[in-house]
């Protein structure tokens, strides 16, 4: 699950935006169209028609929105399906998609007014289209990665998951096109959750008529592109949905995803002009191809970069081995040269000094308190290790997985840096599922990992990775602090706003002072776009905006 790894979770927030939505509790404008702003910045009139050819790193693992939870699958699922709400353009702002909404009941009752839209087969989108999908995601047999986002948050979801009821009491069709969702408590992140592909509109008639395996390979959505054909191992052909509910788009007639897993060949193909884009279809431009492209004047201007809402980190086990001692962990913070880690990542990263990335709309601290500021100073690290009772260092193991070449290089670099302060480390590399299994034992003393947001709110990083109720799966360092738990639990019940931001700030400051992580780098995402491919932008929460893209004469 390579790409899934980076698609782990996330909660950083467009809290300001959410705040106003919650405070206003008013109906949002129905026709906000991100492409208007987008085209304005492009300064050109989109050309209709044409084909966009893309190389795809592997077949799409899943086309069923309930099952898709990796960036490759989402690249397609976002073309085939729509959700209640989505993100505006390149921003973290939530805007209506298939529905406008009002929020009442102190932030616990969401009422959605569904637009007049149709599936490709002509069936109308109704409230039941969403209720069916929520039930699919909640159903244990579906093995959906989305279950944890709405269970137990939606009222009655627990009873449904445990087979005590046949329906979810918090999901109601007030009429054919009005959907009411009731939550157990207010949630500042629920609209972000609804923008995830898990919670797309599906056609209940179609879903009930076909087995799961069929739905996973034969999508039936409302999206801008339909799947016209799939030739196993060769390509996917997508054609324009002429009845798309957003007027005026998509521009392209056809998109062809040709399966090609060879990075060299993909790069040559792009340089020949055979493909239009290297982006999420390939998981971005790989680090090894970035330098040659960025130093070549012919292509350097075709590169688009954006700091991901993600962080690569070194986890230090807080319960097991010498790192159980906070003084040891704090000492090691001074042993790691983050500039060198950035060089290993081909410069496609920013050195990290805290848990939340600067690309997170809220929560990043420009000025950390003094006790949370660490810097590279091996001599100091050595002194602090001696004070902590390890004048001769100790032996340990750094666990890493094989999903990216840079992971092993990072682990090996850390190994050398640790050696300089007397800590002898061996590196253990394994497959992702083996890594996870080892991780869940809670006995990996040191490990490399990354966290990519699911949605832009600090709770996705802090609550998921440091709340003691997340041990051992996401809180893999076994970090446990009742004071931090109390703050995080309070934050998850609060409405968005400055007070909530402050809670997360306090939590982050306490966590950093106890050093369960050595934050290494904030990765930078790079896409290569042909000059004749227009309308491209990067939204940190979504994959490629193919519906807004068009091909100019070339």
């Amino acid at each position, binding site marked *: 699950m*390579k790409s899934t790894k980076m*698609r782990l979770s996330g909660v950083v927030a467009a809290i300001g935006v959410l705040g106003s939505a919650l405070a206003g509790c008013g109906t949002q404008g129905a026709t906000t169209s991100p492409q208007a702003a987008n085209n304005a910045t492009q300064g050109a009139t989109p050309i209709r028609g044409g084909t966009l050819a893309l190389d795809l790193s592997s077949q799409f693992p899943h086309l069923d929105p309930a099952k898709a939870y990796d960036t490759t699958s989402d690249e397609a699922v976002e073309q085939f399906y729509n959700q209640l709400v989505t993100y505006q353009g390149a921003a973290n702002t939530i805007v209506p998609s298939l529905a406008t909404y009002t929020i009442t009941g102190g932030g616990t009752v969401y009422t959605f007014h569904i637009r007049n839209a149709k599936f490709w087969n002509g069936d109308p989108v109704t409230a039941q289209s969403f209720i069916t999908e929520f039930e699919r995601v909640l159903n244990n047999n579906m093995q959906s990665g989305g279950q944890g986002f709405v269970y137990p948050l939606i009222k009655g979801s627990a009873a449904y998951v445990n087979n005590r009821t046949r329906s979810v009491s918090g999901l109601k069709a007030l009429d054919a096109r009005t959907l009411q969702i009731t939550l157990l408590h207010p949630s500042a992140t629920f609209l972000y959750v609804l923008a995830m592909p898990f919670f797309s509109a599906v056609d209940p008639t179609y879903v009930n008529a076909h087995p799961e395996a069929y739905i996973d390979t034969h999508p039936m959505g409302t999206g801008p592109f339909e799947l016209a054909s799939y030739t196993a191992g060769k390509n996917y052909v997508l054609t324009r949905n002429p009845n798309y509910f957003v007027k005026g788009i998509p521009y392209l007639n056809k998109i062809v995803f040709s*399966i090609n897993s060879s990075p060299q060949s993909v790069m040559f193909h792009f340089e020949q002009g055979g493909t239009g884009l290297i982006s999420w279809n390939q998981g971005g431009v790989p680090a090894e191809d970035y330098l040659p492209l960025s130093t070549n004047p012919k292509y350097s201007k075709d590169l688009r970069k954006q700091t991901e809402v993600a962080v690569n980190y070194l986890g230090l086990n807080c319960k097991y081995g010498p790192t159980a001692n906070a003084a040891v962990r704090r000492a090691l913070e001074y042993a790691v040269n983050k500039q060198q880690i950035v060089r290993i990542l081909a410069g496609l990263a920013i050195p990290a000094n805290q848990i939340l990335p600067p690309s997170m709309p809220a929560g990043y601290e420009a000025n950390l308190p003094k006790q949370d500021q660490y810097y590279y100073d091996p001599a100091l690290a050595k002194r602090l290790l001696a004070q902590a009772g390890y004048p001769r260092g100790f032996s340990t193991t750094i666990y890493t997985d094989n999903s990216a070449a840079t992971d092993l290089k990072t682990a090996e670099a850390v190994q050398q840096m640790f050696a300089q302060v007397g800590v002898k480390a061996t590196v253990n590399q394994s497959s992702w599922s083996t890594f996870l299994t080892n991780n869940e034992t809670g006995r990996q003393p040191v490990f490399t990992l990354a966290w990519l947001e699911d949605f832009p709110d600090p709770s996705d990083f802090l609550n998921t990775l440091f709340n003691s109720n997340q041990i051992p799966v996401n809180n893999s360092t076994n970090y446990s602090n009742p004071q931090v738990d109390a703050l995080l639990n309070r934050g998850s019940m609060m409405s968005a706003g400055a007070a909530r931001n402050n809670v997360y700030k306090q939590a982050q400051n306490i966590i950093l002072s106890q050093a369960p992580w050595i934050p290494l780098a904030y990765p930078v995402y790079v896409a290569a776009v042909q000059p004749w491919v227009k309308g491209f932008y990067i939204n940190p929460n979504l994959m490629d905006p193919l519906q807004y893209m068009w091909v100019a004469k070339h």
Partner: protein
Amino acid sequence: MISYIIRRLGGAVIVLLGISIITFVIAFLVPANPARAIVGPHAPEALVLQVDKQLGLDQPLPIRYVNYMNNLVHGNLGMSYVLDQPVTNLIEQRVGATAQLALAAWVLELVIGIPLGIISAVYDRKIIDHIASLLALIGISLPVFFVGLELMYWIGFRLNWLPVGGTGGFNYIILPGLTYAITGAAYYSRLLKASMLDVLSSDYIRTAKAKGASPARVIFAHALRNGIIPALTYGGIDIAALFGGVVVIEDVFGYSGLGQLAVQAISNLDVPVIMGTVLFATAFVVLVNVVVDVLYGIVDPRITYS
């Protein structure tokens, strides 16, 4: 002959059984629970346990093996953990692509290797032989991925004569096939040269020459028929291995074949797919070996099976 074939097939079943046990045990000795990787980090523990149960991973290893073999004899190789599709479908989707590539690679190998071997034998220790041997040595020494990348760069990218990679029609198998042929042809030419030299110095060839048969007739009708037997043996193993997946070449060219499926499965520890591709490749090697043995009898009348 029939009883021989039956005996060989019986042996093949035992080989397959052995391979299945070894692969199964190795794959499951690595501590890896795919359930968490499937459902992602936000899934509640109950869901992970449920997935465990659905995959049958809550059972002890011997029972899992018995279940697996039971499914296997019913033609069911299980479901891929990563792609959530039947392994038989995945193999079926890719076997055609691999077969095309394997055949192209094999034919190109023979087209390069056999003439090279004959020339080397006929012009033994002459300048032509030295040149042919040198070419063979270079081919055999070059790493496959290097040849693949060079061909991709020069013929695919710079000259733009053929696709740089991916999967499709005939165009797409030439470069990968040529890569395999360049690095593999030398095995044939060397085997053929050695056996041809042996044959060309034998009595019946001298007789044929003395009877006034043309040099071409002597070489092709008399010597080659005998001299090609070692190459035939190797050819059988070669094509069988190719059908199991042209691992490195498929990887270099991003070609969607069985080899690539196997590589991806191994890096993801997708055990059912690993098992499926390994068993498929094994079955092929075993089967082709039987066929080659039978072919011996046809090519060489001295070999009989009783």
